[in-house]
């Protein structure tokens, strides 16, 4: 009896929190659900009754956006640019972070500070000269150029995060590896990287999100329709088809769904990436 009472009391204590959380969750998710529902409606339904659920489910809207408005090309550009960027960021930042965290050399602090400095300024601070530079190097309007810009943009945070993580590795591990005749590069490749898998995963997901969603620099650097990424394609699409309400919603969803899928699959890694990076 006593036990029941206590648990009932505890349940009652938690109730206001649940109510508030459910309320917040509904408000947060309703716009998303609404956008998904609207993408299945006809233009007429959206206009006449924006709040209602779709009468019949028109998946045709997605096909129209995918094939009719070159969302297939945007999608593959986004995949290519994002995956390559993430791979490069992971390789370059783990190499550099290992060096910063575990090796002694002149200028360690200075070089690390130079990287940190990259996180301190707003994006607009580099846009003008960057635009000019990319044309000089023949990298404007190129997917590879965009990848380099994204990698350069992600490196400071990636190095900061991995350096903090690598610093946590006991020195004895490296010493004993060296005794076994393991060079520093072998140590990096065979021991450090496998042991850092969770961190690399978290960082990778974090960089994936940032790169997939990036808009400002793509807007400035990409001209050709066939080289657009999804966020950029969405703006062009809106210019052209804005009066087609249903297609607009379908386009928004095509851009959003991949991140939702990645998020559902790697939710813990992503949040870990954000919090580990921030709390250290």
């Amino acid at each position, binding site marked *: 009896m006593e036990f029941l009472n206590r648990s009932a009391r505890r349940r009652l204590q938690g109730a206001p929190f649940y109510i508030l959380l459910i309320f917040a969750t509904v408000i947060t998710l309703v716009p998303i659900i609404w956008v998904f529902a609207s993408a299945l409606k006809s233009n007429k339904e959206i206009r006449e009754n924006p709040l209602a659920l779709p009468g019949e489910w028109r998946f045709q809207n997605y096909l129209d956006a995918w094939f009719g408005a070159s969302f297939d090309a945007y999608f593959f550009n986004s995949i290519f640019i994002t995956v390559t960027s993430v791979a490069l960021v992971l390789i370059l930042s783990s190499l550099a972070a290992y060096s910063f965290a575990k090796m002694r050399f002149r200028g360690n602090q200075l070089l690390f500070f130079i990287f940190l400095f990259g996180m301190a300024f707003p994006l607009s601070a580099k846009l003008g000269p960057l635009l000019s530079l990319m*044309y000089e190097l023949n990298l404007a309007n190129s997917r590879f150029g965009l990848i380099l810009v994204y990698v350069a943009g992600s490196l400071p945070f990636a190095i900061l995060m991995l350096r903090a993580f690598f610093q946590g590795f006991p020195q004895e591990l490296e010493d004993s590896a060296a005794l076994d005749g393991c060079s520093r590069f072998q140590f990096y490749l065979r021991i450090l990287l496998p042991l850092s898998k969770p961190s690399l995963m978290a960082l990778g997901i974090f960089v994936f999100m940032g790169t997939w969603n990036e808009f400002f620099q793509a807007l400035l650097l990409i001209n*050709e329709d066939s080289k657009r990424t999804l966020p950029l394609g969405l703006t062009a699409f809106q210019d052209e088809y804005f009066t087609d309400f249903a297609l607009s919603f379908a386009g928004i969803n095509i851009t959003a769904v991949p991140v939702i899928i990645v998020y559902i699959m790697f939710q813990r890694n992503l949040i870990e990436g954000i919090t580990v990076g921030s709390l250290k």
Partner: protein
Amino acid sequence: MNKKHMAVKWRQLALVVTVALFLGAFALAPAVAQDATNILVWSLGYSGDYNDVLVERFNEAHEDVQITYEDVLTGTFTENNQKVRIALENEAGPHVLGGVDVGANLRALVSSGQVKDLTEYYRASGLIDRIPPLLLSQVTVEGRIYAIPQNMESVGIFYNKDVFAELELDVPTEWAEYIDVLEAVKDAGYYGYTMGLAGGWPSALMASMFMYSSAGTEYIDVLSGTQPWTDCDNCLDGMNAFYGMVENGYANPEPLGIDYDQSLDLFYQGITVMVLNGPWFIDDAVAAEPDFEIGFFYLPPVNPATDIKTLGGIGGSIIVAEYADVDAAFKVVEWLTTEEVAVQALREAFVLPAFSIEVPEDIDPLTYQIASETAANVDKIGFWPVTYLPPKVFGDMNQIVQGMIGGMLTPEELLSEMQETHSTYLAEN
């Protein structure tokens, strides 16, 4: 560490360096050189799909010159301008560029030596006789011709014929009649004037039409600061007329809350009855499949003394980049300005040519009406000042016009603000 270990280490190090160098080389690899007779075109002046059709036709008909087409200019007016100029300067752009709003840009392009002087080609090809002098003057800088006018943008009012019939309204030809129509439409529960001013471009453009139809070239003098705005009563009349669309309840509500494309939807739904627009609108209107018939008339001039019939001007011109093989490039230009291609463009892409052609009668009736009326009035065009305005003022112009519609500026303050903005830019440069 012994020697063996060192050797292993150096091998791995070499691997790292190789990877790094490989990445670096990959990054800096120059673009593959273009074939001399391959002409890179960024826009042919038509909408997406029709460009592809044209390129295919050209490449089939020509062996010595082939077009490579890149669909680049799909951004806003300002973004496109920016891309073109940067690309031309860096020689990373097209050889031929069609359909661009050269306007004030042309002067800048000419003075920085980025476009070819086409005068001789123009004369030799006989094109010069087919282009109306008024249009020709727009692409001439100090007596030399640097661009070929390609298409016309003839702007007027598209209206819902069903509502006009229902209310027994006639097409207005004078400003007072136009106001009567707006009143009648309003009394019947519709909105007469479609207005969506959010976003980058429409505000300045829409306001300019009214200013120009009232003040003519005087408006340009005011804009460029050579005449004080206080001396231009016609300018004020034009701006008041534009503001009147909102003030008197003719325009749809929330003009600042929706952009132009969103406002078009109101027209297709039959909520608004008239929309000020250009021939590019036909394509969109056909695709929207409204359940009423659409008619067209020119916006009656606010001030009849200016004798301006049509509002608009060159929609796009063709330029050839300084670094292009001009002989090969001009073949593309010449082909684009043949009657055959122009008629096809009119028929398939609803684009009015900027040179004389015989308007075929078997085309879409709305297109036929605009094309023939424009051809008849080609000497009474009121050029909208977009082609005169330096792009640097354009973005600010939009914001200022929004200020008036939002009730933050009176029409007088708007004129003063516009002139001040412009003269600040001029003084700083």
